[in-house]
């Protein structure tokens, strides 16, 4: 962690794991909780949540490799993309219990996930085959898939505007798109 704006190094947290004491696993993704009190990361052993101020491990969620994580805007949930299980999984931050499993009906290659700013939906972007991709949205509370947008290429990243329903994404091949969708929740 570095301080903005002078970029002084504040803290380096080794990603130690009891399953790999000699070789901390490579961090696949990381994110601050919305209140800044926690920093989460995904790796080959699941998710770890640490205290931001000193890096103390506060919760470990064992799972297969998690390559992308996202905190819900209210900080109560953390989601992980599990490529090997073809699923998005959501856990409660308070105790690490599993809250929801959102299955993918196709390949789930190079996935990334993000909660929408309102927190009622979660999106996954992924390669649905070796060449094509998709953006999929679910209702967080009941797990319903509310939209799938197939794309001709793998989708690489997605970002949400604070303006409800507006999102941007990039695809392999160099395309960037800003779109709007009004979801039936």
């Amino acid at each position, binding site marked *: 962690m*570095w301080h*903005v*704006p002078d*970029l002084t190094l504040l803290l380096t947290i080794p990603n130690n794991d009891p399953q790999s004491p000699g070789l901390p696993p490579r961090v696949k993704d990381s994110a601050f909780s919305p209140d800044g009190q926690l920093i989460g990361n995904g790796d080959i052993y699941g998710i770890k949540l640490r205290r931001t101020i000193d890096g103390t491990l506060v919760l470990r969620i064992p799972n297969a490799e998690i390559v992308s994580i996202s905190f819900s805007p209210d900080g109560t949930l953390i989601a992980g993309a599990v490529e090997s299980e073809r699923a998005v999984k959501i856990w409660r931050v308070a105790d690490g219990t599993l809250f929801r499993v959102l299955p993918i009906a196709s390949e789930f290659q190079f996935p990334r996930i993000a909660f929408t700013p309102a927190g009622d939906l979660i999106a996954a972007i992924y390669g649905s085959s070796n060449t094509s991709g998709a953006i999929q*949205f679910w209702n967080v509370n009941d797990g319903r*898939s*509310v*939209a*799938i*947008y197939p794309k001709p290429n793998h989708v*690489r*990243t*997605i*970002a*949400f*505007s*604070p*303006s409800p329903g*507006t999102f*941007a*994404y*990039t695809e*392999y*091949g*160099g*395309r*960037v*798109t*800003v*779109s*709007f*969708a*009004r*979801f*039936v929740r």
Partner: protein
Amino acid sequence: MGQDEWIIWTKQDADPYLNVAFSTDGSMLALGREDSNTTDLLKAKNGNLIRSLTATHNRTNEAVFTLDDQYLINGNGSSGETLTLGLGELPMASDSSGWAHIPTGLTA
């Protein structure tokens, strides 16, 4: 299922965009490129280029705005290179002299 996706704007670029981030106020997009050392700032409403920022390494792995939209931070570096953090104060002036880079000591 939900309603259709309405595309507000879309554009193709020969130098692929690797990632995208909205500014906190939603007015700007930062787009990091895969094969060059530039990160583009665009107007979110129409995709018009505000300016391009030059980093010290190719491949912008991540770009984020600070919560107050005062700064844009990106992480750069390809496999085998030292990863760098770039930080620029917003709004960007006519040159990128305010764009600072620090090596992280980490290798991609």
